[in-house]
């Protein structure tokens, strides 16, 4: 053991992070300022600008139609949201919601193309698989550190950390969905002279839609769980209230905020699952 001294891996990574921070400072600053402003506008001006009663009604109506005109999800959404409003956690809810939406959207926008790339090339699959494993098994808190280094504190590093943590399921499921399309259908497509793009958009993606949507659902759930953790670096929202409860040892405060997160999670989960129906399915 003594022959090889302790390798300064941590130092190397620090150096790499410093280098990245300095080199891409202009980019990070741009994202931090402009993108950060945009997130706040969406959360505070748009979402919080909607009257609470109107918001609850709109979600209720959407839930009714999304769930196939069943009352369960509708009732749960309306009562759940009313409860959060009643506990004076509406602003926190809107902030958390905004973060989840942004983190999920970015994850999907990055994840789906990578998943397609992975499905089209065995080499890419071999390279990406261990990276995805790494991203998912690394304790989520670790992502907060470079996030702070790049973007300091606030909403933007929260989104950044969430995206890293939440993207893998979308990539994996997109890859899986496309690879699961039966060989005969690929042959059928090829035999009619489709180009690679035609095959992708007319056969592979529509056929893989259900699997991809399951991946996106996972991504949204992971983003939500990460958004709470991101409160530690100043991302506003329900998570912050949880942490306040923790710091002041107020079980009640923490529990109520936690309940709010659970309600949000269930509503988002049921919405995304119900949207996931395939055409031509019996």
């Amino acid at each position, binding site marked *: 053991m003594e022959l090889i001294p302790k390798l300064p891996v941590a130092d190397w990574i620090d150096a790499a992070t410093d280098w990245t921070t300095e080199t891409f400072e202009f980019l990070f600053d741009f994202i931090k300022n402009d993108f950060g402003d945009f997130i706040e506008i969406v959360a505070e001006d748009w979402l919080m600008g909607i009257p609470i009663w109107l918001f609850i009604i709109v979600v209720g109506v959407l839930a009714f139609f999304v769930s196939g005109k069943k009352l369960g999800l509708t009732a749960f959404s309306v009562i759940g949201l009313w409860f959060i409003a009643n506990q004076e956690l509406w602003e926190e809810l809107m902030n958390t919601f905004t973060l989840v939406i942004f983190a999920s959207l970015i994850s999907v926008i990055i994840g789906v193309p990578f998943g397609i790339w992975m499905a089209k090339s065995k080499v890419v699959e071999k390279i990406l698989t261990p990276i995805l494993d790494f991203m998912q098994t690394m304790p989520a808190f670790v992502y907060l550190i470079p996030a702070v280094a790049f973007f300091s504190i606030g909403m933007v590093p929260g989104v950044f950390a969430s995206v890293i943590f939440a993207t893998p399921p979308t990539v994996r499921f997109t890859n899986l969905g496309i690879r699961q399309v039966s060989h005969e259908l690929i042959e059928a497509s090829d035999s*009619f*002279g489709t180009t690679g793009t035609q095959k992708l958009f007319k056969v592979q993606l529509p056929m893989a839609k259900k699997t991809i949507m399951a991946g996106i659902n996972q991504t949204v759930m992971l983003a939500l769980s990460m958004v709470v953790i991101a409160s530690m670096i100043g991302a506003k929202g329900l998570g912050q209230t949880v942490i306040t409860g923790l710091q002041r040892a107020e079980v009640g405060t923490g529990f109520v905020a936690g309940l709010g997160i659970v309600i949000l999670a269930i509503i988002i989960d049921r919405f995304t699952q119900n949207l996931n129906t395939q055409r*031509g399915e019996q």
Partner: protein
Amino acid sequence: MSTEIKTIKRTIIMRKEEVTDVPIIQVENLSKIFGKNAKKATKYLDEGLSKEEILEKTGNTVGVNRASFDVEAGEIFVIMGLSGSGKSTLVRLINRLIDPTEGSVYIDGEDLAQMDGKNLRNVRREKLSMVFQRFGLFPHRTVLENAEFGLEVQGIDKNERQEKAKKSLEMVGLGGYIHQFPGQLSGGMQQRVGLARALANDPEVLLMDEAFSALDPLIRKEMQDELLELQESMKKTILFITHDLDEALRIGDRIALMKDGRIVQIGTPEEILVNPANDYVEKFVEDVDRSKVLNAEHIMKRPETVNIEKHGPRAALERMRKEGLSSIYVTDTKRNLHGYVVAEDVSDAAKQEKKDLKEILKTDVPKVNTQTPMQEIFDLIHDAPVPVAVVEDGKLKGIIVRGAVIAALAGSEVNLNGIDS
């Protein structure tokens, strides 16, 4: 006999040549070897090693071994073989869903094996359409959307392509199902959609890979009939893959038999049945219901005749005694059939010193033509007092005796040329 077979083959070729000069599909020395270093393994094909030996030596699997054949425009060419014989690989080499290891596939004189992606796509879009064993329908598209797929890929305007797709669906009897999804249809109907999708493109060649094999026997037969009926009006070139010999014999104009990646025989259904190229083919065709395939020409033999212009009763009696016959057919010098005479009458006439056969000539001849299928000959031969006469244009071509029919059913020697020498 062998020279006569050659004559027949030549006439077949000549007949085909009248249709077009260049065959629509020409396959030359086409080989596919699966696995790494496939190119190296081709030298073992040259050495004539078997599939097993090559697998042992190199670890490569021979899919198709030096296949060569031509398919003429408008014919149904069946490639038949058991599973693992390479027939499905062969059909995929023809539209290059699988890249060949060696050899060429010419479609309208252009070598597909050498084509770049763009040209290959164009050939697939315009000239070749494929129908799949498990239908290969897109479950997320309606019947109509499936049928228009090939046209959509070509970028054809929506109204026009839907019009064509509808026509094609009506042709296969699915006009009323266009907004259903494939999952809502039965197997037979799904394969009709597959067929309609292939036909909507109006391709020159239809590749059908075990298209009816997944259907139950009754539906399969129905589909075969419909395909033949459609073919009457479409006159497409169809390359049909099957493992079912009855199906091959039923719909094939010509059949190529495959074993271990090699084509062992190519011929018309009759040629395959009657002249199996080797023991393998012979074993294969052993159980076939021959009565469906063979016709009068195959089982008739050279008739003994007397000439009404030259021979009298005495000569006729002499000939019958020599051959041990109880009746004999009477023709003239141009072999026009006049009737037959029976031994009793001939003998009486000879005793009465009559000179002419006309008086005792019987004209109730049991007649068939050369193309009459064997099935129809059964009843006739059962009731006939004399051997059945095979007549064409009034001329006697041969006779069929009861024994020949039974022998043919039993699968023993039959004449391809019709008249044994």
